[in-house]
């Protein structure tokens, strides 16, 4: 852009200055993002492509052996599979429970809706470690459930409730449920009731009104809720460790364990497999729910 003219209003230089000023507002966040997120991520990706070294953090030769080790080993494939299963169960169950609750919240008066939303936020203020120990107190060998059942002489010996996939799913689902409810409720609250009425006036009963109108129109909230819950499940290390026990591993546990074992390059590759799972499932959710169509973009 020619900037030789004197900086008067409307001159090319003036335009440039104005543009610079508006960019300066986002410059700091962008800089922060580049230095502390994009940069390290790129660095980590490079590390995942290097061969391991006994003496250094990583070797110098470029190789795909780290990825081959993850994707070629049945042990790791089973862990990826289990990670997907836990993610799907947590997300699916949370969706089933959250949708009716969100519908009820959307029908409340604005005053009660705010109260309900604040009530939903409360559990999020509590540490996940505390909540995991809470579940241990309920599900453990000497926990509430086993004590009651034994005392009532329904069972002879304590059940092994803890350290199972069920315990992990239950623990994660209850922690993440509010995210799902809040995002669906927001979507439903903004929905004009005349859409549902229009469907009814055209002959759609309650079920078909839901299938053809309410559900697709709430898809932005559903997609956001499902992605939030799924992504948070992928990285919920503490809950998985405490409720799943030492022998229950998901991808995130493997990242942690291999990093602790100084297998930097392998750990980096695992981290990128985890990222790949997140991106893949995130894209799948968008593809199936097509939240963009609510804005009329097909």
């Amino acid at each position: 852009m020619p900037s030789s003219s004197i900086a008067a209003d409307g001159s090319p230089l003036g335009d440039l200055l104005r543009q610079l000023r508006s960019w300066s507002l986002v410059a700091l966040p962008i800089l922060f993002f580049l230095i502390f997120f994009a940069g390290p991520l790129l660095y980590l990706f490079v590390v995942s492509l290097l061969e391991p070294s006994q003496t250094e953090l990583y070797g110098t030769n470029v190789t795909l052996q780290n990825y081959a080790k993850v994707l070629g080993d049945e042990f790791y494939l089973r862990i990826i599979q289990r990670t997907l299963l836990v993610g799907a169960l947590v997300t699916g169950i949370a969706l089933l429970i959250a949708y009716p609750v969100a519908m009820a919240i959307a029908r409340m008066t604005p005053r009660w809706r705010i109260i309900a939303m604040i009530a939903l936020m409360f559990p999020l203020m509590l540490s996940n470690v505390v909540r995991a120990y809470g579940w241990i107190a309920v599900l453990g060998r000497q926990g509430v459930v086993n004590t009651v059942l034994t005392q009532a002489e329904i069972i002879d010996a304590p059940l092994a409730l803890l350290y199972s996939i069920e315990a992990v799913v239950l623990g994660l689902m209850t922690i993440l449920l509010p995210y799902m409810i809040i995002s669906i409720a927001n979507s439903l609250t903004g929905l004009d009731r005349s859409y549902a009425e229009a469907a009814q006036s055209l002959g759609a009963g309650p079920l078909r009104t839901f299938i053809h109108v309410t559900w697709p129109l709430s898809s932005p909230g559903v997609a956001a809720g499902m992605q939030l819950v799924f992504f948070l499940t992928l990285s919920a290390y503490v809950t998985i460790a405490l409720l799943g026990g030492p022998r229950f591993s998901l991808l995130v546990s493997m990242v942690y364990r291999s990093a602790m074992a100084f297998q930097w390059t392998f750990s980096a590759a695992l981290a990128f497999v985890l990222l790949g799972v997140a991106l893949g499932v995130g894209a799948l959710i968008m593809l199936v729910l097509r939240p963009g169509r609510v804005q009329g973009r097909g």
Partner: protein
Amino acid sequence: MAAGEIDVRLENVSKSFDRVEAVKDVSVDIPRGQFFSLLGPSGCGKTTTLRLVAGFEHPSAGAIYIRGAAVTRVPPYRRDYSMVFQNFALFPHLTMAENVAFGLRMRRVPGPERARRAREALAMVKLEGLAERYPRQLSGGQQQRVALARALVVQPAVLLLDEPLGALDKKLREEMQVELRELQHRLGTTTLFVTHDQEEALTMSDRIAIMRDGVIEQIGQPREVYERPRTEFVASFLGVSNFFDGRITAAANGSATVDLGFGQAVLSHRGTVGEAVRFAVRPEKVRLGQISTGGFAAQVREIVYRGVTTHIYLDCHGNEVIVFLQNASSDALAWRIGDAVAFSWERDSAVVLDRG
């Protein structure tokens, strides 16, 4: 009229919300093919009445029939009607063609026939080229037409219109009024129309019900309710009226002489001597002349030129009298503020109002 020809019947219908009566004892019959308007200010109960017919609200008392079928306890989706909403309520995730086909799909009309009828309906509102667009990509007027096509394609017993032209600008609204009326005439669909716009109601309707505080004050053909308003509310809500108060000084053979304080007027009215009466005269029915022509003496206070008409505001012994003059010749423009004038009207132009 035979009962079979009545498409919508409301029998003593009332509706309360939290002890507030929104609709009080409303009874209406709409014969097949009629364009029927509910007219009134906001909060008069007209929209609630429409929603009762639609089944979105349930009456506290009374019964509703559509084509002879009692629908009072029937859910909306099993009633034979369709509706155009105030905000159109086009489904944003569906194309125009899918929006129009929605009602047919719900009625399980097979695919090819569905597509054909949706296409025809879009052609009917002159939008066949926009079948694959989404609501967001259309102008307000286009959305309005699609909403109309979506409602008409299912060939409903009754078409309900909830202020469908309210969201459009004035010029487009007037175009749509004519278009909607033509379409309704052509298809002969019984129509229940809700509006607060008196001009719109007069333009479009076969019959108008004027509502106030949940009660129908008067039902009649546009000309009837305009020319012979029964109450002061109807006379002032539908157009403009001059109101006069007086006391009957002589009565005989269906005519009454009334003392207005500033003169005597003769009305077509069966009354008794001494009775207080209030009557209305439309501004366009008031004649204006030189003081020598006879009539009530007054003074010109204000003159407003409006293009088609000129509005002249008179002061008659402290009463304001409005006169609308057609600008057919330059006569109307000859008056000046401060002129002493005489005004009068034909005897039948004065309408005696119910004491309410």
